[in-house]
């Protein structure tokens, strides 16, 4: 079986799974449905591994030509290179784990088969996104994941009390993504008009052939691309949908809104690196927005009381971190963080899912506490995830963050400083979350406590696997100072074959500096750990109620009022316009105007009738008048017109 066949099967398998589940899912037993979906994804993961092992250079697989227009054609092609296969591995690997987890988590849900159909569909569209060899296919995937995420966020649309809220959250996500998509579309248009193709490789070739030609257009294109990225990857200004998206089931949050879909923006940017390299301004904008996002999100996360909301905002903040990396041109570093983040954030979400499962769907951390004994495995794994994200030394997060911080330090100390603040805040809210959930005394009441139990194997196995990955994930891209030969294995691997990346060499700094930075980072993590331990375990501090919060805490817990601002600035005016136009212009002006006219015409009949008086005398009189008129017409005309 050739490479291309392998690739196509890899893409097709989840679709097949979705089709089978979608059509017969209702009749099949749950276990069969779930395992089918999981196995499909897992097989494509294995295929991915085989392809990964045999990767060399870039291979384009032509499927069919979608449409041929007069000055360009649109093809369904797929591209196999290190970058795409890397993303594929993340998606299918983590995807299969989360499928496994969902088998347990969703076991009580009546929409079981629907759920797995959607998950498989999502995997399929995600694969389209990362494996497409041109922006056209990428856009298909891009929109596809949007739809799946819409369906999955609103999965419990007919829930008695939360149904409306869920579907509204789904709608918000879809529409905000749509705004981003518009940006992507415009990027596509500009590329079509400029390059007459959408193939990554060809565009890259043209640009590298003569960069100076494209500096101007590249700016616009990259800006549009970045708008799209902000939509998918929840950056300022389009980030408010992600926290709401937590309305979906927890595995969805883990898979879509932490591990894979939200990283599509980073993937897009890395893919189009050759364009971004021509547009320094855009890169600066990305840098600024990345920094802003990471700080703002971290700040908001500090006073959230919904376990998933905290993780959601931490995701936003981490994504911001990745964009900072991109803004500094450190593409591989960003991807490295994507990878590790996928590990530990998935882990955290699944952990929180297991917690919620145990707490029978209670998400408020003020009602939790002391779960460490009740759910040991979840506790351990969650702790590992926490440490990883806070950058505890020698865990995966430590390395990836450190890379980014190092680049920040080199670009400018200020950026580094701000990032450090963000990092500190990250540590604070993560430890707060961890301690409030797993330590102290149980605050949920006895009745609830009696139900609390550790989740089943299908849920704990993924946790453990991910825990292992989060611990050792850093090995993928060790800093050069420790292991000179194995250093930066992942970066080199990606740069080796991905088009354009090999021109961009992010320099790695010398030992002493980096060691200092690492020490600072770990110091921060440890101090915060200590502080949090004292606050939440020793002093048994619990989350405050809204009443006794100071301004900052209020700001944080109310998400800086951003939703309200958007509501008043964008949504309300449009709705007002809608009603006003409909009432005033449409009805009053157009509609009634027409009817006024017609009725006026009809009424005028009454006046014309009056002439017909019914008296013979008047008839004869008017006849004579007519003749006299004729004759006078003759006289006038013959005198004046000739």
């Amino acid at each position, binding site marked *: 079986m050739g490479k291309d066949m392998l690739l196509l099967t890899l893409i097709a398998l989840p679709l097949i799974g979705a089709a089978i589940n979608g059509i017969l899912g209702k009749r099949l037993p749950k276990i069969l449905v779930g395992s089918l979906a999981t196995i499909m994804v897992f097989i494509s993961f294995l295929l991915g591994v085989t392809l990964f092992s045999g990767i060399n250079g870039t291979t384009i697989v032509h499927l069919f030509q979608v449409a041929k227009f007069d000055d360009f054609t649109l093809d369904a092609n797929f591209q196999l290179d290190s970058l795409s296969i890397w993303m594929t591995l993340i998606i299918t690997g983590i995807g299969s784990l989360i499928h496994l987890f969902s088998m347990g988590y969703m076991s009580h849900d009546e929409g079981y088969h629907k759920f797995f159909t959607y998950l498989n569909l999502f995997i399929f569209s995600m694969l389209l996104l990362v494996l497409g060899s041109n922006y056209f296919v990428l856009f298909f995937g891009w929109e596809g994941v949007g739809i799946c995420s819409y369906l999955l966020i609103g999965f419990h649309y007919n829930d008695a009390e939360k149904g409306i809220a869920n579907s509204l959250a789904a709608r918000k996500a879809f529409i905000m993504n749509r705004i981003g998509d518009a940006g992507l579309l415009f990027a596509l248009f500009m590329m079509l008009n400029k390059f007459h193709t959408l193939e990554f490789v060809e565009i890259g070739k043209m640009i590298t052939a003569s960069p100076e030609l494209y500096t101007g257009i590249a700016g616009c294109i990259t800006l549009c691309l970045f708008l799209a990225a902000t939509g998918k990857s929840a950056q300022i200004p389009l980030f408010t949908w992600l926290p709401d998206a937590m309305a979906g089931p927890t595995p969805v949050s883990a898979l879509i809104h932490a591990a894979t879909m939200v990283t599509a923006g980073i993937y897009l940017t890395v893919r189009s690196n050759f364009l971004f390299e021509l547009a320094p301004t855009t890169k600066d904008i990305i840098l600024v927005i990345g920094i802003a996002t990471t700080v703002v999100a971290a700040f908001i996360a500090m006073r959230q009381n919904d376990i998933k909301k905290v993780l959601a905002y931490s995701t936003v903040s981490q994504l911001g971190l990745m964009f900072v990396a991109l803004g500094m041109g450190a593409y591989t570093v960003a991807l490295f963080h994507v990878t590790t983040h996928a590990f530990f954030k998935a882990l955290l979400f699944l952990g929180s899912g297991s917690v919620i499962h145990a707490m029978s769907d209670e998400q408020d951390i003020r009602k939790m506490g002391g779960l460490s004994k009740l759910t040991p495995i979840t506790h351990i794994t969650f702790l590992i995830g926490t440490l990883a994200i806070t950058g505890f030394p020698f865990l995966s997060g430590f390395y990836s963050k450190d890379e980014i911080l190092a680049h920040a330090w080199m670009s400018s100390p200020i950026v580094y400083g701000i990032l450090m603040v963000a990092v500190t805040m990250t540590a604070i809210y993560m430890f707060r979350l961890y301690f409030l959930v797993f330590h102290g005394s149980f605050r949920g009441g006895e009745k609830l406590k009696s139900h609390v139990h550790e989740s089943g194997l299908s849920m704990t196995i993924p946790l453990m696997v991910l825990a292992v990955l989060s611990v050792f994930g850093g090995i993928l891209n060790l800093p050069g100072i420790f292991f000179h030969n194995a250093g930066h294995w992942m970066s080199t691997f990606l740069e080796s074959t991905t088009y354009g990346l090999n021109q961009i060499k992010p320099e790695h700094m010398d030992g002493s500096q980096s060691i200092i930075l690492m020490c600072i980072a770990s110091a921060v993590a440890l101090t915060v750990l200590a502080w949090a331990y004292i606050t939440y375990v020793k002093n048994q501090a619990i989350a405050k109620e809204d009443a006794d919060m100071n301004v900052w805490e209020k700001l944080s817990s109310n998400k800086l009022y951003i939703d309200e601002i958007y509501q008043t600035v964008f949504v309300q005016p449009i709705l007002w316009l809608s009603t006003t136009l409909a009432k005033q212009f449409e009805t009053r002006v157009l509609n009634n105007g027409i009817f006024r006219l017609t009725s006026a015409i009809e009424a005028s009949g009454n006046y014309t009738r009056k002439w*017909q008086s*019914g008296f013979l005398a008047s008839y004869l009189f008017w006849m*004579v008048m007519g003749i006299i008129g004729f004759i006078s017409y003759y006289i006038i005309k013959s005198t004046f017109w000739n």
Partner: protein
Amino acid sequence: MEQLNNIGASLDFYIFVSIALFSIGAIGVLTRKNMIVLLMCIELMLNAVNLLLVTFSTFFGNGEAQIFVFFIIVVAAAEATIGLSILIMAYRNSKSIDIEMFNKLNG
């Protein structure tokens, strides 16, 4: 020949006379309310035409117009008969020959 010239000299005079006759008839038609009088006024107008035609025929010296006049007289007679019968019928229906009475059809 002689006679023709006299006519030619005073052709306008004849025309004016017939126009006057015609106008008198028309004005009568407009002003009078009695249907019989109306009928007569119309006859008057027709006779004005006859006079005019005869004048011209003498002027051109060909007989056609005079034949035409006979036609007109015949037709006028026919019209008069029809008119009178209609008049009688109308009288039967609304015991009056005043045209002001007939205004049921209007608007």
